[in-house]
């Protein structure tokens, strides 16, 4: 069946099988391979995207369910080609990634988290991060990156 999904501000219209997973649709039909698949059963969080602004597991949804919704993936974060947004920059500055496979999902989870909690403490970051598995970093530098991004955002505020 034919669907149109809005991803990172652009419409993607494709003819898909009803059983096609959203994660496969994003990666293989739309070529947005930045969203990674780690477990296909909704545990690891690698495939996390923003669905109408809220984090969602792309491996637990069918592409047809996304018809008419606004999705955001890791490819939609940077302000322009070759650039990083402040959260991505904080991840580089804090060494918040190693193999980088879980990173896109974590960036999407933390993007939504920081919008709701612009001034989190470490415990809150760890709680929010606990739905995303990382096997390389031991999480410490990821937590540092998120706290760094929050601090940087605070300093960018005009009256801060």
């Amino acid at each position, binding site marked *: 069946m034919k669907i149109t999904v809005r991803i990172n501000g652009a419409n993607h219209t494709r003819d898909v*099988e009803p*059983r*096609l997973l959203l994660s*496969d649709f994003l*990666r*293989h039909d739309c*070529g*947005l*391979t*930045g*969203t*990674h*698949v*780690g*477990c*296909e*059963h909704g*545990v*690891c969080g*690698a495939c996390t995207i923003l669905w109408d602004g809220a984090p969602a597991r792309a491996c637990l949804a069918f592409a047809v369910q996304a018809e008419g919704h606004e999705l955001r*993936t*890791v*490819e939609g*974060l*940077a302000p322009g080609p*070759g650039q*990083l947004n402040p959260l*991505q920059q904080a*991840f*580089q*500055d804090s*060494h918040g*990634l*190693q*193999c*980088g*496979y*879980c*990173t*896109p999902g974590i*960036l999407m989870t933390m993007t939504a988290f920081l919008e709701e909690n612009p001034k989190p403490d*470490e415990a809150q*970051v*760890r*709680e929010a*991060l*606990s*739905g*995303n*598995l*990382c*096997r*390389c*970093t*031991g*999480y*410490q*530098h*990821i*937590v540092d990156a998120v706290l760094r991004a929050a601090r940087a955002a605070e300093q960018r505020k005009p009256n801060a």
Partner: protein
Amino acid sequence: MNSFGRPLTRNEDPRLLRGEALFVDDVELPGLLHVAFFRSPHAHAHLVSLDVTAARAREGVVAVVTAADLGDYWQPGPLLVPPPPVPGMVFNQRCQVPLVRDTARHVGEPVAMVIAASRYIAEDAVGDISAEWETLPAVGDLEAALASGTAYVHADLGTNVAAEVHQARGDYDAAARAAHLILKRRFTYDRGASIPMETRGVVAQWDPRADRLTVWDTTQAPVVIRNGLAGMLGLSERQVRVVAPNIGGGFGPKMMMFYPEEVLVPWAAMRLGRPVKWIEDRLEHFFATTHERSQIHDAEIALDASGKILGVKDVFLHDTGAYDPYGLTVPLNSQCTLLGCYVVPAYDSRFTAVFTNRTLVTPYRGAGRQHGVFVMERLLDLAARELGLDRAEIRRRNFIPADAFPFDQGVIYQDFSRLSYDSGDYEPILDKALAAIGYADFIARVQPEARAAGRSLGLGLVCYVEGTGIGPYEGAKVQVQSSGKVSLATGIGSQGQGHATAFAQVVAEQLGVDVRDVEVTTGDTDQFYWGVGTFASRGAVVAGSAAHEAAKVVRQKVLKTAAAHFECAEEDLVLADGKVHVAGVPDHAITLGKLAGLANPMRGAVTPGTEPGLEATSYFGPASGATASGVHAMIIEFDAGTLRPTILDYVVVHDCGTVINPLILAGQIHGGVAQGIGNAFFEQLAWDENGQLLNASLADYLIPTALDVPRMRLEHTVTPSPLNPLGVKGAGEAGAIPVGALFAQAIEDALQLPARGIEILEMPLGPSRLFEITQRG
């Protein structure tokens, strides 16, 4: 400009952070076909019949391949690591097969390969396949596997013994006779899985016009895969390109060679003349990607009255799974690493590797070192208690003294050289750890106060060594590009270790360029021909040293070319900021890019003894490995009701010689500790008596989350290795190795188990198992 030794952020990060970096499953090709496997549902069974006709008839299915269809291509895999040259050793080689022909030996062993227009159709067709099986008793328990009347994993062998190795030096019996104290215990360490976030995958494309095969593979060893595939497929090496692009975590199991899927997918691409992709799903990963850890040790230690070790005797069983293509690396590591930081005058160690009807066992981060450290550190804890010694003091009394290096351990290591510690200085590490964790204050004040308040606080303190940086060799090619950037290519693969930054720092140090201007390529056999792989914490040591040597040669070429250009002596030149100038005349500089052009002239001759371009290839092969060391210390609190642990403080003091990049090193340690915590507290593969794995999902096999891994504090000492020009030692496994032993000691301490006659002699220990144990006594 100096970048070596600085905590620089990584060159590879921006592309990963933007979702641009290529992973194997990102490879899309016109006409790509997709593979799904029909796998054995039984741990041990004869395949009586296999019917794939319905699968072949399904629309969208291109081929279904069984063992019979492979013809002569059906061969057991190669023996990756031959047995060690230990006198009297027994080794029974039984390597994995591409597809089950008559007997399945573990759940998940591939039986048929379906190739279809999409993965969805391929999986539909797997459901169309029917097989008739005659099930056989599954071999699981290591001791039962060696008893009479057992089933045999390999019936033709008439035994489940995969190997027996005995290494001894000194006279243990004499040591025991002279001992003031002998302690003997049984220690068990059970199976876990490495669980990289990216599962395995292979994409293969045969190009008939170029007469070449390209394979994208989640391997840690692309060069070895290239060589092996060429041989199996009747091609020359130059016809095969293996690319290990960005790999989503390796941790050892992606070093296994060859997995059946790695053999089958390229073969199918050549036969069908179309590109073929297989990506392992997480369920498959639990069965089809190798595991590690199961061992049972019966160990004893003999000490004098002062707590000095006189000797250690250890007899252990090692579970090698259904096949043993990786040889004896894991149990040899256990055997050798048990000796740890200590002088052990008499050592008698014998192991038996045992075939079981379980997934193959190959190295996973630590690779057997955990077990040795667990046994030795536990024996020292028990001895300290018996002798009334402080746990730090008994370790200190037995340390190899700083002036005793190089220290010959007198046993054969996994690289088949005699294990000799290159350098080390253990007391400063221990002292730093004691200070950082607040040891004296904890014993004198913190713990008594906590206990008085009804809280269960305990401390762990353990020491370890990590054999790293073994041979045989790696190489690196350094080349100045006409852009002025410098390229570095090496044959190893990268799985997140930061090679694109650390190696760039090594090269930038020699060539006076910005570290961002060094472009590192790993894992592409077309970019660098020779190599072995990323394992045993050897990347920085071996490939890093090769990069250093190559960069030094390029530096000489740069200076020689610039000296000719400026008509001056090389000693008068300054190489910095990507340019060369005559000392004192910085305004008249020539860029490296222009020098590269001068070194590759369009007219005139390249004179004898010189080569065009500013390029060099160097190799580095250490005679033996470099031995890193460290101490972990932890304060932990247990909820008395649920036995849920909370880690209140975690300190790592580590010595891996010269540090190239402290930020990347910290990440390696953090990640290792997190895996160690998983190994100690969460991760245990659970099997039933039929050899069925009961927790094959991430919802059932729990790995640590951000709530389970504490903030860690790291400190370092630096004892350079004399075995390589950089003085570096590996650090990849240091975080993971001692954590089991650390938890055991801290648990006993927190719950005051010794007073109740309870000892922690096993790993892993989830809360329920810990509850069971603490009900004893």
